[in-house]
């Protein structure tokens, strides 16, 4: 089980304010603010997608800001990530999208395909498995992105904007997926401007303003 420790992370997007937040192993925390653009950069830095100039973000034993490319790649084998738009490979079917990380880890093609379809079915996407990602609605793309991020059964899940592109049905599916993930003891950190959904998905809702230290 992995914990997330954000220590005095300096954010240029927030006028140089610093943020400190601890997410215990197996805990689910939502970082919320009225403006989604203020919280998304924090998740991106936790995922190692944007550089960390000052402060520290640690996931498990990995110092994300100081880790090299290969350390980050190894860390990501245990850290799922869902971006705002989902980031599916547009020209590829949903099944192939979900199967790719499994195949990259060495699973045989047929086995990975079967597993991907099984996971898509759990999210109610079985009838869309053979459609190219670019041809389906953004809500379904976002759900498939959750399925893909969870395919490797990560110990940590980072979500840029949990509510983006999701209607009530999609939100229920995400809630169900996260419940299954958390039953395995995974740690979750998500950012959102929708406090109601954040409360449903996590144990603790943290207002951004409460963990910021002015520059």
């Amino acid at each position, binding site marked *: 089980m992995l914990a997330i420790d954000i220590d005095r992370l300096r954010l240029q997007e927030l006028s140089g304010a610093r943020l400190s937040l601890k997410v215990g192993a197996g805990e689910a925390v939502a970082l919320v603010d009225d403006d989604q653009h203020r919280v998304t950069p924090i998740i991106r830095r936790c995922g190692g997608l944007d550089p960390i100039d000052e402060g520290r973000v640690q996931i498990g034993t990995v110092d994300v800001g100081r880790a090299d490319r290969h350390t980050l790649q190894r860390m*990501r084998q245990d850290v799922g990530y869902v971006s705002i738009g989902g*980031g599916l490979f547009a020209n590829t079917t949903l099944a192939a999208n979900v199967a790719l990380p499994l*195949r990259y880890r*060495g699973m045989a093609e047929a086995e990975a395909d079967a597993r991907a379809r099984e996971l898509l079915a759990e999210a109610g996407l079985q009838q869309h498995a053979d459609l190219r990602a670019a041809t389906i609605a953004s809500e379904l793309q976002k759900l498939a992105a959750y399925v893909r991020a969870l395919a490797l059964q990560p110990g940590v899940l980072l979500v840029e904007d949990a509510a983006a592109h999701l209607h009530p049905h999609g939100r229920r599916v995400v809630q169900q997926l996260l419940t299954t993930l958390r039953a395995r003891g995974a740690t979750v950190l998500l950012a959102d401007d929708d406090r109601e959904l954040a409360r449903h998905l996590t144990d603790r809702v943290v207002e951004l303003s409460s963990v910021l230290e002015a520059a």
Partner: protein
Amino acid sequence: MLLVELRRVVSYATLTVMTFGAALRRDGRRVVRAQIARQIVFSGWDAVPLVALMGALVAVSMVVITATLLPSGQTPQIIEKVLTFVLVRELAPQVTAIIVILRSCSAIVVELGYMSARDEIEAMQTLGIDPVRYLLLPRFSGMIAGQVALTTVFVGAAFVAGVAAAVVLGVAPALSLDNLREHLGPSDVLVAVAKSLVAGTLVAAVACYQGLSVGRDLTQIPRRTTRALMEALIHSTLALQLITLATL
């Protein structure tokens, strides 16, 4: 201006070193191998008819021009020399490089550009998939293998068409593929292979770099594609000429 050019060349070299370095790792072996095969089919196999046609046409032109310009007594010997020396060492790698640039370079820039603009490359990173190994290594491998194989196809088609043209037109009735093989030295083959390797690597580096430079701005795709085509053409031609000068 010169500094900008120099920086770009350094970037191409860095990308190439990173990609060759990624070839030494083993993660995602099966899926990367499948990608490499796919790229070789696209960059190499699919271009065989076009390259063979170009090789044949160029050889026929060379035979006709040589026969027209030279006194008839010297024609067969000169045709043999022209076909082996000029064609194998110079024209085959150069014309093949131009075809590879036109077909594959633009395709790679557009594909990587769209992936970059749609955050697909970033998504790949979040899945623990190394984009250098999964995206760039197959493109480099495909372009290099394709360039070498297509140069061979070009030479083969040119030899057959050149001999056929010489015999049919009556300019060198005794010319045969065996004559050409005798004239073809190991150094000619080595130079052609070296040029193909260099051209394939350069074109791949330019295409991948420009494709990845699109960032999130879709309007950069046509600009980067044009720039990649021009730069790949200029850099590969310059490199091939340098090899020519160094091996004369």
